[in-house]
């Protein structure tokens, strides 16, 4: 029972430790007709993506293969920068270092307008950097990245 291209919505994974901000980003994304999964930490995000968090390496023999569930296919990740534990920047790095996930576009959100921080994230491969509170016009910028992400994923799958 797979979803055909006609009914496939873009799926965004939102990461933010603030409940209010999670609620806000979820509403913003849903009102743009995106499917949303919101988690409160970088490690939960990696878990959802099927990537083992190095610091919590399990003595499990078989690692979970990434993207083994059609339903959890993620087309874009939007993450807060300042989070306890794993920062948004660290999450970004882990995703870009992963062979199976590095095609997924990542967007960073931050309440602080710090140029060195912004540059660091963009250099590491973030597509956009949004200043909080995130607005509808920011979310409107996501579509081209989402479309590109989906295309790259198709390419990766067929390689």
């Amino acid at each position, binding site marked *: 029972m797979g979803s055909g291209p006609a009914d496939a919505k873009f799926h965004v994974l939102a990461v933010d430790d*603030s409940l*209010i*901000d999670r609620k806000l980003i979820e*509403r*913003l994304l849903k009102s743009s007709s995106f499917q949303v999964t919101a988690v409160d930490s970088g490690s939960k995000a990696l878990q959802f993506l099927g990537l083992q968090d190095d610091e919590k390496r399990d003595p499990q023999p078989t690692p979970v293969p990434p993207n083994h569930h059609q339903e959890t296919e993620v087309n874009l990740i939007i993450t807060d920068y300042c989070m306890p534990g794993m920062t948004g920047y660290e999450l970004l790095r882990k995703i870009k270092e992963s062979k199976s996930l590095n095609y997924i576009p990542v967007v960073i959100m931050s309440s602080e307008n710090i140029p060195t921080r912004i540059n660091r994230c963009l250099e590491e491969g973030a597509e956009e950097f949004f200043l909080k509170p995130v*607005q509808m016009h920011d979310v409107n910028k996501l579509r081209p990245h989402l479309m590109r992400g989906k295309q790259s994923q198709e390419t990766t799958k067929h390689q």
Partner: protein
Amino acid sequence: MEMWRQVFQYKESLFREGILDAQFTQLQQLQDESNPDFVAEVVSLFFEDSERLINDLTRALEQKCIDFKKVDAHVHQLKGSSSSVGAQKVKNACITFRNFCDEQNIEACFSCLQLVKQEYLLVKNKLETLLRMEQQILAAGGAIPMIE
């Protein structure tokens, strides 16, 4: 009509006085028939969050040896949530507060905490009143006045 005008004037005064900012309007614009309680839910979360953080801050500043990093972390959180709901005066009080945390200025931090408490109670009171008034308009089949 009269009710609408009262609400409009009340709301306008909140914006004029800087108690609420454009972010609050953003929140209201995200509310629709399929998400009729969105603003009430976010505001409610903001109240819970703020009260918890203000308690944490009070306790943190009562310590014999104040951990300014911890204090700053709490203020950072409060600044974030107040910014997200459009509670401008609370947000601004937090910005000032963080500067004094950086300086490790105990006296000033105490004053800032008082100010934050004050501004929070003010916006809480105003928002509760506003949302109640707006609910009445909606119940009567009217539309909420939006402030640009």
